[in-house]
């Protein structure tokens, strides 16, 4: 059954079935379907755009979102793509500003010193109205100075263009208040047709309000605008609504719509007044004539100013050069590339103060006798010595400081050969002090010692105590570690205290009567030497010789024996060269005790008498 019906279908609808199969493949296979859609996509989009506003609106959101995503991901590429678009917009804005500036400048230049301008200046002086104001009133028909685009409902400022700071310091407050006034007027005064405030006067300004569906335009105009301006403002507002409808609906973007601001800046126009009828036929040529005269005057003034500057520079340079020591100005003249100075220059003259662009020098050397330069030469010559040279007006050089004879003689010769120097006074120069002399001034040679320095060798002669010479030699060795010292002729004496101790310890024993043993004789010789040494160091020194006995025998005999023993030793000392005036005798016989032989008590002892305690002078 089925096969029969299929056959019948095949017979009757073969072409249609084939077409259906083709269509099915096109629709169901994505690749074929994409190709089919691609063929008609452009045409279909254009038709839908024209026919269906809902289609336009539906595309706005995905395109906007797509752009946002692209901005995040491909910022650099998008910036590069937009530069060619935004660049010209920015340049156009800058160009418009420059054009306005040039127009203002042209107006002032055109006026210049024309009779009209002089007349207005006279009027300004008489009436107190600023000159610029009079120029504006007489030359400009009107000027749109501020343009506010304001949200109609909230009164928020959408964008602004104008001369910042001149008016409407708080533009947001101005926009809100204007909206409030507009609402108030519409609510209280207008009829049901929805009429709103159209214009108001603010001093010399006119405020025009151009109503739009979502936003309204408020412009401040100076002068007397024509109604044609209102038409062009209305056109501009309609254009803004058409191009930026979505932006106007989003209050988050208010204040951040540079393209809208550019549209508003285009509205800041200045309409100049036509030239007066009187001036029509001759005005242009007169203007040209005035401009030419002005240019000529400017050129003459510029030339004069340049000439005066040149003379002033020449005068200043001449005055500077004449005051430079060691420079003789011979000529100064203008050359192709500045000023050429010819003169004589001492090698020590300093021209750096006048060395600047535009001044060239042609110099010949000479020797100046200017006192400051001679003094400089003196300083150079005395460099490296301990001498100072001072030049007096009469050409006499006074030297001070220290110098050896050779150095001084050489310097004198050179000074006397120097031009500008007539005499040399060296009385204030002292010979240099050697280190050895400086040492001796601080460390004098001990008494009785003669120190001779020859070829770095020190020779010492004489007698002195060990203490004195030791400390002095230590100082010498410290100051001159490498010095050779010859002490062969130096005799070092025992110290005074040691001598006194030795003398006080001397004992001469006499075993029988006044008989002196060989040992006692040696003791007397040694004692005599020590006494003489002590008296050499201090002639006031003296001694007491005390004779002693043991207790055998009578006291009277012992007293006499003790005395004889002391006298005996005194005689022996005198024989050894000791001054007898410096010897006293005393006795210490046995006073009481066992009458037995005691050789240790048969003796003579000695004691030094110090000057303070002694009886002798």
């Amino acid at each position, binding site marked *: 059954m089925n096969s029969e019906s299929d056959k019948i279908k095949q017979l009757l609808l073969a072409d249609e079935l084939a077409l259906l199969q083709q269509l099915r493949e096109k629709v169901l296979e994505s690749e074929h379907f994409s190709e089919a859609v691609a063929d008609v996509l452009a045409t279909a989009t254009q038709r839908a755009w024209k026919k269906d506003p809902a289609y336009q609106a539906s595309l706005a959101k995905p395109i906007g979102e797509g752009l946002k995503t692209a901005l995040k991901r491909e910022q650099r590429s998008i910036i590069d793509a937009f530069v060619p678009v935004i660049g010209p917009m920015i340049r156009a804005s800058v160009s418009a500003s420059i054009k306005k500036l040039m127009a203002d400048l042209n107006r002032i230049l055109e006026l210049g010193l024309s009779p009209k301008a002089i007349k207005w200046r006279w009027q300004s002086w008489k009436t107190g109205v600023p000159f610029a104001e009079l120029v504006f009133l007489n030359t400009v028909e009107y000027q749109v100075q501020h343009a506010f685009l304001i949200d109609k409902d909230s009164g928020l400022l959408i964008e602004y263009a104008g001369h910042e700071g001149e008016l409407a310091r708080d533009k947001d407050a101005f926009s*809100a208040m204007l909206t409030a006034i507009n609402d108030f007027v519409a*609510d209280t005064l207008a009829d049901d047709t929805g009429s709103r405030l159209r214009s108001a006067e603010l001093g010399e300004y006119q405020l025009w309000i151009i109503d739009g569906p979502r936003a309204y335009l408020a412009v401040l105009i100076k002068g007397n605008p024509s109604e044609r301006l209102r038409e062009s403002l209305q056109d501009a507002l309609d254009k803004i609504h058409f191009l930026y409808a979505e932006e106007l609906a989003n209050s988050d973007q208010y*204040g951040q719509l540079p393209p809208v601001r550019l549209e508003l800046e285009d509205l800041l126009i200045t309409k100049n007044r036509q030239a007066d009828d009187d001036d029509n036929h001759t005005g242009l040529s007169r203007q040209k004539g005035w401009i030419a005269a002005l240019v000529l005057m400017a050129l003459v003034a510029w030339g004069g100013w340049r000439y005066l500057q040149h003379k002033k520079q020449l005068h200043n340079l001449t005055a500077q050069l004449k005051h430079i020591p060691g420079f003789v100005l011979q000529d100064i003249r203008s050359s192709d590339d500045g000023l050429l100075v010819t003169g004589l220059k001492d090698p020590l003259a300093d021209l750096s103060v006048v060395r600047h662009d535009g001044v060239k020098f042609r110099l010949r050397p000479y020797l100046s006798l200017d006192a400051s330069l001679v003094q400089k030469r003196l300083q150079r010559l005395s460099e490296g010595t301990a001498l100072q040279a001072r030049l007096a007006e009469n050409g006499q050089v006074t030297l001070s400081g220290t110098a050896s004879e050779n150095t001084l003689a050489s310097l004198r010769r050179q000074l006397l050969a120097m031009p500008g120097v007539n005499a040399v006074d060296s009385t204030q120069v002292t010979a240099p002090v050697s280190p050895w002399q400086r040492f001796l001034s601080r460390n004098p040679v001990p008494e009785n010692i003669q120190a001779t320095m020859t070829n770095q060798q020190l020779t010492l002669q004489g007698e002195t105590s060990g203490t004195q010479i030791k400390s002095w030699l230590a100082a010498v060795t410290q100051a001159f570690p490498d010095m050779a010292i010859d002490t062969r002729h130096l005799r070092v004496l025992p110290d005074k205290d040691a001598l006194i101790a030795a003398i006080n310890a001397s004992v001469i024993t006499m075993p029988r009567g006044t008989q002196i043993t060989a040992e006692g004789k040696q003791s007397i010789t040694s004692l005599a030497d020590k006494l003489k040494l002590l008296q050499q160091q201090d002639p006031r020194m003296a001694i007491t010789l005390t004779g002693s006995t043991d207790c055998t025998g009578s006291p009277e005999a012992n007293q006499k024996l003790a005395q004889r023993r002391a006298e005996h030793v005194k005689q022996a000392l005198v024989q050894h060269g000791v001054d007898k005036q410096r010897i006293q005798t005393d006795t210490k016989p046995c006073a009481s005790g066992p009458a037995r032989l005691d050789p240790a008590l048969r003796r003579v002892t000695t004691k030094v008498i110090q000057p303070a305690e002694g009886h002798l002078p």
Partner: protein
Amino acid sequence: MSAPVLTRKICLLGRLAVGKTSLVRRFVENVFDERYQTTVGVSIHTKTLNINAQTIKLIIWDIAGFEQVAHYQQYLRGSHGVLWVADGTEPASWQKLLAIHQNHQSIHAVPGVCLINKHDLLDQWRIRNEDIAHLQKVFGFVLFSSAKTGENVEQGFTELAKRLLKDQ
């Protein structure tokens, strides 16, 4: 790059002499004047705040107090927020606010903060806890304030600004 400045319109609503103008002057200029001056129509002030690194410029519409005529409606158009102002010593002031809120459904979508002003006049204070609870329920956020002492003035405006940013 710093975030662009947002401009937002807020309106002060309240009965005559509840202290709307004094609150605005205290907030904007930090001054208080004992003398009472009636606002005619509306007066506009601006103040810029910085909240969480976002700069917001408030365009404050100080609308004249009202008795019967609902002249304020035209000024509310396009408003982003409302500061409801009542007088804690005058029951009619908060009753009027509640009536306006009830009669204007469109205003419910707009963020709001309610200030119960004149808190310095505690000896004349008449608002009850149940009134406050009701206002809290209707307006969402209520603060006692005093334009004279400055109490909660800045906080009230700042809270409203924060709500405007959340509502973005």
